[in-house]
């Protein structure tokens, strides 16, 4: 038998090791390449790596999707993970990206309740926000010096560590209530953000806030943000808009306050 190249050894190794637990797909050619007392011993040694492959990556996904794992239950979560790893093996040097397309994967599966795919989307947004770029937050004091006539053209920008998540189910309730196993569908908007103290939070938004937040994220003016409240009287709209802005400032999601474009 010709000596296999380094690449060939690694290809055989991968095919034998990156497999679903319990599936014995150790390549006979790899068994022949491994030193051992007998084939059983050789296979035992190879299985140390295949067991470790699966368990390590399952633990990573469990850490990133704790509530999903809990709701699916151990056996089902393991099943989902093993199929996910077959379809979407890790393509990045940092394992932090492993769960990037788990939501998409769950949406394709008929046997996973739709609300759990939505829950996964929320949990992944929390992962992304956790290590999103830093930014200095604006404070209410920054607004004190803004002249009244400059307000309409004022532009805000959101911190990078914020995401707006739209789901078909109120999954924030599933996330926070351990006893809840299911929620009926109800279109939901959530903002997920990282506070100054690095705590990751999420909160439901009503339609107005959701629309206003989209406008702030896309850099529209305060006047445009106020249009979200156009169905209210001018006074009420101004009160609602400034109240919302004050809440955003308090939550630390406004990055900086710019001038007119």
């Amino acid at each position, binding site marked *: 038998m010709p000596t296999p190249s380094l690449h060939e050894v690694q290809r055989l190794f991968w095919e034998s090791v990156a497999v679903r637990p319990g599936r014995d797909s150790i390549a006979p050619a790899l068994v022949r390449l491994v030193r051992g007392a007998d084939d059983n011993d050789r296979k035992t040694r190879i299985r140390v790596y295949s067991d470790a492959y699966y368990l390590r990556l399952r633990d990573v996904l469990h850490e990133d999707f704790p509530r999903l794992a809990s709701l699916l239950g151990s056996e089902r979560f393991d099943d989902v993970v093993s199929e996910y790893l077959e379809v979407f093996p890790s393509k990045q*040097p*940092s394992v932090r990206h492993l769960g990037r397309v788990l939501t998409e994967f769950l949406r394709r599966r008929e046997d996973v309740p739709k609300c759990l795919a939505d829950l996964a989307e929320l949990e992944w947004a929390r992962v992304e926000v956790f290590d999103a770029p830093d930014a200095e937050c604006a404070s209410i004091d920054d607004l004190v010096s803004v002249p009244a006539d400059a307000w309409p053209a004022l532009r805000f920008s959101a911190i990078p*560590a914020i995401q707006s998540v739209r789901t078909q189910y109120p999954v924030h309730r599933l996330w926070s209530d351990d006893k809840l196993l299911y929620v009926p569908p109800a279109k939901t908007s959530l903002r997920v953000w990282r506070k100054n103290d690095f705590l990751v939070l999420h909160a439901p938004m009503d339609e107005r806030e959701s629309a206003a937040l989209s406008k702030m994220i896309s850099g529209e003016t305060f006047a445009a943000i106020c249009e979200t409240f156009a169905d209210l009287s001018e006074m009420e709209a101004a009160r609602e808009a400034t109240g919302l802005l004050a809440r955003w400032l308090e939550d630390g999601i406004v990055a900086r306050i710019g001038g007119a474009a």
Partner: protein
Amino acid sequence: MSFLPHLGHGVGLRTVHYPHVLDRTARADWFEVISENFMIAGGRPLQILEKARELAPVVLHGVSLNIGGTDPLRQDYLAELQSLIRRFAPAWVSDHLCWGAVGGRFAHDLLPLPYTEEAVRHVAARIRQVQDRLGRRILIENVSSYLTYSISSMPEWVFLSAVAEEADCGILLDVNNIYVSAVNHGFSPLEYLSGVPAKRVGQIHLAGHSSQGDLLIDTHDHPVPTPVWRLYREAVRRFGAVSTLVEWDDQIPSFDELIAEANRAREIESEVLSANSVSP
């Protein structure tokens, strides 16, 4: 190694001990951190690393360089590593003598290489590429292994030494890994130590392991066991005072217990070196 400072006896910095960094009670000679955990855009880990380096020197230890792989080196990975180096000015940078990815897929594990001339040339050439890109020499670490290949033409320590010589890099000698692999493959750990060129050993790792059937597994979830302390004593006899670090990654104890392990390493080093100095 002449290009490295002697930092003393440090500990691997892990998430559970971050509060000690924030309140500045994490007193250690130096910290080693996993490079990939800080290849992120922002957030708490980077703030912790900033604070940790105010307390003690920091070293970057990678797990995904895939230096023994046959895929092209990931330039995006090297760019991120370079960026971390610029920001945190680590005392040195290390990774593992293994492979971890093939066909663009990452196992996130430290997989064993066959010890062949082909692998020596291949790995050394890649280390040189990395060193050229980073503008500094790196250290490569021997890994624990649970299998060896029939096509290997040399023992592990000869392979490690040959790679380090040909690449002109340093060696991070993991004494626990030597012990684990020695038990798993039936070689002499002392022969391993004597086969490694002392001038290239820039760092030593210590850790605990566990048993799985007839094999020892490098789990980093126990105190450093007696046979590993014994081997460390021999390593100090052979290599002298080398920056030493205790790794603990699972069932992580209190920071004080971790420091106690590092202090034990310090005591052993001191005992061995003072005994050596009075020897005829």
